């Protein structure tokens, strides 16, 4: 099997023997949307749930514990750059960022 992998600054082509596990990224392409007929047919298909026991897997010991889930406090005080014209706002923004030593 030959795959193309996304790198930070480009792509690489990788060959691997099968079977292989491949993870994909959003550059992969268009999803295959079902047609109406296929959606109708899907409704009739049997869905058979399996338990782990039925496929011969015992529940693995939990190795990772979620201790806390929270929304971090991020308070941003927004300054609205005012001006009579868009040009004036653009110029004022530059002055403000200069004062903040960011440019």
């Amino acid at each position, binding site marked *: 099997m*030959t795959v193309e992998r996304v*790198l*930070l*600054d*480009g*792509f*690489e*082509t*990788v*060959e*691997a*023997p099968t079977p292989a596990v491949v993870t994909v*990224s*959003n*550059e992969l392409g268009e999803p295959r949307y079902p047609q109406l007929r296929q959606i109708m047919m899907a409704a009739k298909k049997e869905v058979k749930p399996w338990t782990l026991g039925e496929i011969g897997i015992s529940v693995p*010991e*939990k*190795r*990772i*514990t*979620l*201790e*806390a*889930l*929270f*929304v*971090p406090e*991020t308070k*941003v*005080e*927004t*300054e*609205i*750059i005012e001006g009579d*014209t*868009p*040009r*004036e*706002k*653009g*110029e004022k*923004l*530059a*002055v*403000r*960022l*200069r004062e*903040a030593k*960011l*440019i």
Partner: protein
Amino acid sequence: MASGTLVIGEATEDGKLNPVVPELIGIGSRLGGRVTVALLGSGVEGLAREAAAFGASKVIVVDDAILKEYQGDSYVPIAERIAKEVDPAVIVMGQTMMGRDMAPRLAQRLGTAVAMDCVNFEMQGDKLVAERPCYGGSARARYTINGTPQIATVRAKAQEPAERDDSRQAEVVKQPAGVGEGDVRTRIVERRKEKAEGVRLEDAKVVVSGGRGLGGPEGFKPLEELADVLGGAVGASRAVCDLGWYPVANQVGLTGKVVTPDLYIAVGISGASQHMAGISSVKNIVSINKDADASIFKSSRWAVVGDWKEIVPAFTEKVRQLKASG
């Protein structure tokens, strides 16, 4: 008993110590105990001294041509061998191409678990508490790992790097790779670089990003000019990458890149949570949007309401002027 931290270090493509390594050493030092750094690669031996300067007590170097590129089949067994020998309480590595691939595989081999893409750490007794962003950066989760060693990958620039002190010494041990061509099942056939001009998005101190509000691919020209004046890089929202207005490599966000500049300028970007996930640790966000209710303003330090087409050129011109006046 397992103790201390093992840092899986790495080099950049041009053979320098990856900047995440001093950050990892910093984490190890703060957690307490010995910090051992494993350096795997080709031509990495010279970096051992640097790792020592950042505070490693011991550096294990595996320098072999077979390790020129990261391949799971060659790197993972070596990391496993070193982990078993060092017997650390904690293993950390960067949330890099290498770390993402290696960490889960290593955890599986060592019969333990991994917390990925963490930004904060704390020891509670002998338990590592690792914190990571979740739900597209809008929440944080804290995990503990019930196994030894406790493994985590770390987001770049989330933690303070260790101080460099070139007078520090460390024990440096060289080890053979112990893997051969026959062990590596994947083969890299070709590598293509996207011609990245100027500053890399991940390293940029200033990022100027454009969204659908630009109205078309030509809208990026003035942004490139602005980025150029500021010595920064250009980013994009997913909407414009999907439309083909700008390369996907420049996408910022949940499914794009996480950037950490000192200044982020969002032009014609609405501020969807998936976009914000890419800039969640940026303190200075400027946004230019014609919609006064755009959600990006809530996270912005400076907000400019109006049409970018008039604001950006005036802004660029003024920046140029201010820079020229010193």
